[in-house]
């Protein structure tokens, strides 16, 4: 069983549209949406939930007003500015428990925190594991680890060949959690100066965690000069530009129809993504 994740650094380069199409093309796979704080893959895969569970993670401090003598020690020690006027702001509280440990009146308790939900769903293309991080919650990296673990179990149980993940944007905690130990990262970039800047940083993260990389340039014809710069850059880094997808309105049209683009149209975009999947599957073989 092999695992690949689609990431980008910069947001909005087309990760989810590409993952949905890979899902339609690949045989014997489970899909994972690792973008747990703004999950979108379900909008294209139309999942029917089979199983769901709560994700409890971390704790939040709570002050018992009856016991509190307003000595102020908790406010003094809290480094997250989470205590004001002897009340805890649960959004700022990082659950360190410093206040709980120092309170001379034992007026503070630490309460378990419901941070989100995970789902195992069935789709037309196979099983999908996805999640929803609660509003303004932390620990997205841990929730990513949960959905990846569940996908691994499904792949083992059902003897599936591939785990295909839709990754989050950025380079921080949820990206690192999505990336660690995967067999291949597919980086989707775009020929804009921002896309190129962010590509360099996300490649750095992949190198840092020793994950092999292939690059896909989406909307490559938006700026062909920048596209050639990306190709040169990748060549110098010893990486392959596996695919160049043209800018085409069918991607948005497919999205509005709630379909992977390869299912919506047989045009040049679909053709490029098919080529990408061939290269990805060869890499994973």
């Amino acid at each position, binding site marked *: 069983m092999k695992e690949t994740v689609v990431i980008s650094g910069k947001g909005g380069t087309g990760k989810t549209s590409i993952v949905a199409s890979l899902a339609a093309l690949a045989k014997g796979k489970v899909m994972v949406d690792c973008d747990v704080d*703004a999950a979108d893959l379900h909008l294209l895969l139309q999942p029917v939930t089979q199983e769901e569970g709560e994700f409890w993670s971390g704790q939040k401090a709570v002050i018992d007003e009856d016991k509190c003598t307003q000595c102020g020690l908790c406010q003094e020690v809290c480094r997250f500015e989470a205590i004001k006027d002897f009340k805890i702001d649960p959004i700022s509280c990082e659950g360190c428990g410093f206040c709980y440990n120092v309170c001379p009146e034992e007026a503070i308790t630490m309460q378990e925190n419901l941070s989100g939900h995970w789902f195992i769903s069935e789709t037309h293309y196979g099983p999908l594991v996805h999640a929803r991080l609660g509003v303004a919650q932390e620990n997205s990296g841990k929730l990513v680890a949960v959905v990846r673990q569940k996908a691994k179990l499904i792949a083992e149980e059902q003897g599936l060949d591939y785990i295909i993940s839709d990754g989050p944007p950025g*380079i921080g905690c949820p990206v690192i959690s999505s990336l660690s130990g995967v067999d291949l990262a597919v980086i989707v970039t775009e020929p804009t100066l921002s896309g190129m800047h962010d590509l360099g940083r996300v490649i750095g993260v992949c190198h840092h965690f020793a994950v092999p990389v292939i690059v896909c340039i989406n909307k490559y014809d938006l700026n062909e000069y920048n596209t050639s710069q990306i190709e040169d850059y990748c060549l110098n880094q010893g990486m392959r530009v596996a695919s160049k997808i043209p800018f085409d309105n069918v991607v948005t049209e497919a999205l509005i129809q709630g379909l992977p683009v390869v299912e919506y149209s047989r045009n040049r975009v679909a053709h490029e993504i098919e080529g990408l999947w061939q290269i990805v599957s060869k890499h994973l073989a």
Partner: protein
Amino acid sequence: MIIAVASGKGGTGKTLVATSLALSLQNRKPVQFLDCDVEEPDAHIFLKPSLNHKQVASIPIPRVDEKKCTHCGRCAEVCAYNAIAVVGEKVLIFPELCHGCGACSYLCPEDALSELNKGVGVLEAGQSKGIEFIHGKLTVGEAMAVPVIREVKKHINRERLAIIDVSPGTSCPVVEAVGGSDFCLLVTEPTPFGLNDLALAVDMLNKLDIPCGVVINRDGVKDSKVAEYCHKEGIPILLRIPLNIEIAQLYSKGITLVEGMPQWRGAFIKLYSDIEQIVST
């Protein structure tokens, strides 16, 4: 006033809106631009600031004085993040798990733990076209963006109009960047992804009690659901930017909208006066 520019979904045009808003207002009032998308800070590509100040953003990580440590295990017991383990006669510290709360060193009965700042990113500041510019950059390979964002936000100058460019998503880095703002502009696109993530961002802002308005970018796709949603939720649509290849190409070259197409300046000045009106009522 502090205006945050956020989105939920990535790549909807936050940086495009934030940079053009800042440039349109800089000759009318003192403006400060803070790029808090510290994982992928891109505003500097458009504003091209001359950066003359640099400092490290760090978190305090515990360090053990082996001479004083009695291996009692209190530090490991109080650490909520499993960043310290005491195994026999050894104290193991895992800096990548540490949030820098300081509980371990404060509570150590032997006073055997001190703190050492570990850099997780840098902050750079300078000037750009009359705008005071500050951004944070998370070091590649580091997981925690929040301490870097916190460091950038310490430099907010209340005398100025502060415009904050926020990362995509709705979790902790976004909450940290948006928190304390007077208003949040949500930039979206008229697609099912744009709508789904807009609704998540609105939920987050409701929880933070920050008023918001929407900018619809790449407008013109035949999907009116974003506008219907805004209408239903009572969220004002403050600006529409059409789907236009010329705008996309300017962006690809790192040219701001109001510099590439100065006719847009008036729209951004009006956007600001609309925000001012919403905030003052």
